[in-house]
């Protein structure tokens, strides 16, 4: 079942979306283009059918279980979308007068406060448009802090070897050098190595807690002490906040700056690759450097804090104020959950993960950290299965699709060979989890019985496995008229 490209239709396109113009157009001739645009020529019905049918080729949370580790694929409540798409919310121009935006600004202010409360940080800026931008803001603030104190040699950022790729990429973007430290077999960072690398060149350390290995970094207080004593600051990657919501605060752990992924923990939609939101929270000493704008309150009036109010701000990361629609959705979600609801999120995210881990262990799968509690996610290694049968983590991922499950995260973190990083989230029922375990068991049995069958998967999807090498060597990235299909 494959869908033609939208360019292959040859109908009369519907026009007339705009009313009659009030005047005449008078652009100079030499400024105009004279070529034909490559745009679809399809009727409205053809367009609607085309994109509706394309949507049906996708997996999504609304249709399948998505146990992707580190992504927190929980249910996206529909009311969040309804509120974000209220006509006044959609019609508001970001540069409009604040008198016409008090309701919106108050909502943003309250969101800032709620995010401060769940992280234990002093102040929050909502402007970063994704986790990676939040990371950029965090590292940039750390650098700005040191530079303002005249500490110009502090250019090194320490990153665990298991860190998400955005961490070292961000450090480089900020003009820092990256120093990697190893993780031990028990999942905690090697403290001796940490002590060996900190010094007067240390700007800070970037950590996730629970870590990307799915376990709580038990020595966090000691890590914070070591880094702070050396004069560095601590950055918290909030990707795994779902595991600890309402149980502990990054601020209490000693972190100086935190980014949150609203499209993970606070359930805003993943949208096929964004938009996300990477709000960033800081302790008091980093407050002067917060990216602008953010909302401040003057008496009863809500206004935007700008560079004029915060001259040491690291500046603007967005043309406007960040992904407002995403922020509205997160706000609605947080208000619906309330205090008890948020505390229950981590209860059930962690319950589901530990149950799934126990079930898979019982079924004979190898846990990466069998002695540790799962946080909201855990890792299994398929290395033995691969040695015995040749079937890899990638093959399992493809086979799961035939059972109607999106694969867990594969091959991340890089430390564990043939790994699957599994995060069920709190919105999945026990029934869904049992179904996933049954599918995994089935695939394992097939791997030992007839490995080739597994290696042929997926068999029931719109396409079989795709030729990645061809896609990279002979890139076909744009359709051109006259191309055979």
């Amino acid at each position, binding site marked *: 079942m494959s869908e033609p490209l939208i360019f292959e239709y040859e109908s009369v396109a519907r026009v007339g979306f705009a009313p009659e113009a009030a005047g005449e157009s008078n652009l100079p001739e030499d400024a105009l283009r004279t070529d034909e645009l490559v745009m679809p020529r399809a009727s409205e019905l053809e367009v609607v059918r085309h994109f509706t049918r394309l949507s049906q080729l996708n997996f999504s949370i609304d249709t399948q279980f998505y146990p992707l580790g580190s992504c927190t694929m929980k249910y996206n409540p529909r009311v969040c979308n309804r509120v974000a798409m209220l006509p006044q919310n959609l019609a508001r121009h970001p540069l409009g007068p604040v008198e016409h935006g008090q309701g919106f600004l108050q909502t943003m202010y309250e969101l800032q406060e709620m995010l401060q409360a769940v992280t234990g940080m002093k102040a929050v800026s909502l402007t970063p448009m994704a986790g990676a931008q939040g990371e950029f803001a965090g590292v940039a603030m750390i650098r700005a802090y040191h530079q303002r104190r005249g500490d110009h040699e502090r250019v090194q950022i320490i990153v665990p070897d298991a860190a998400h790729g955005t961490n070292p990429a961000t450090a480089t973007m900020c003009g820092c050098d990256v120093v990697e430290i190893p993780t031990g077999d028990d999942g905690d960072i090697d403290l001796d190595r940490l002590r060996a690398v900190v010094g007067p060149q240390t700007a800070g350390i970037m950590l996730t807690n629970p870590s990307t290995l799915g376990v709580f970094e038990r020595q966090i207080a000691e890590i914070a002490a070591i880094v702070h004593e050396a004069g560095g600051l601590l950055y918290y990657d909030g990707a795994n906040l779902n595991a600890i919501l309402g149980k502990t605060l990054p601020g209490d752990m000693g972190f100086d700056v935190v980014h949150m992924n609203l499209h993970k923990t606070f359930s805003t939609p993943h949208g096929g690759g964004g938009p996300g939101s990477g709000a960033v929270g800081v302790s008091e000493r980093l407050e002067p450097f917060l990216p602008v704008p953010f909302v401040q309150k003057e008496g009863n009036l809500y206004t935007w804090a700008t560079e004029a109010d915060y001259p040491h701000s690291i500046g603007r990361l967005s043309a406007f104020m960040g992904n407002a629609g995403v922020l509205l959705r997160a706000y609605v979600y947080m208000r619906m959950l309330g205090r008890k609801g948020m505390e229950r999120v981590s209860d059930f995210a962690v319950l589901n993960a530990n149950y799934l881990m126990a079930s898979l262990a019982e079924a004979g799968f190898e846990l990466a950290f069998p002695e540790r509690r799962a946080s909201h996610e855990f890792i299994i290694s398929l290395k033995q299965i691969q040695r015995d049968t040749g079937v890899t983590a990638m093959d399992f991922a493809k086979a799961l699709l035939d059972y109607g499950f999106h694969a867990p995260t594969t091959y991340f973190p890089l430390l564990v060979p043939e790994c699957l990083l599994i995060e069920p989230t709190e919105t999945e029922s026990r029934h869904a989890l049992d179904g996933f375990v049954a599918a995994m068991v089935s695939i394992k049995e097939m791997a030992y019985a007839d490995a080739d069958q597994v290696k042929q998967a997926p068999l029931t999807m719109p396409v079989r496995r795709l030729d*990645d*090498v061809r*896609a*990279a*060597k002979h890139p076909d990235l744009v359709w051109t008229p006259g191309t055979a299909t």
Partner: protein
Amino acid sequence: MSEVPDSFLYTKDHEWLRLNDDGSITVGISDHAQEALGELVFVEVPEVGDTLSAGDACAVVESVKAASDIYCPLEGEVVETNAALADAPELVNSSPYEDGWVFRMNPENATALDEFMDADAYGRHLAELED
């Protein structure tokens, strides 16, 4: 077990060096490296005339799942690059020590070759990595 020709020298980053009669050095990546990367889709070569220091990342080999830097082993100037790799990067996979050579350079200091591993030493290095 990957191939490790006797006549070459090796670095711990899996590059090989061949000393040519005219004193220039040809550089490529080892059989072990090409196998780990998988089928190459692109090779970024340095520019002829570039002056490089030892340890400079001067080329990139890219497969679907990984992109690795090739580090310049010695200080010197690039005098030739393998033009065939533009259309056929997979030559590095099929013939890593011959047709898949990446670049050739004139070293500043010819005696600095002592610090590299010979075939036996590299073979032992690979064996250690397997564990």
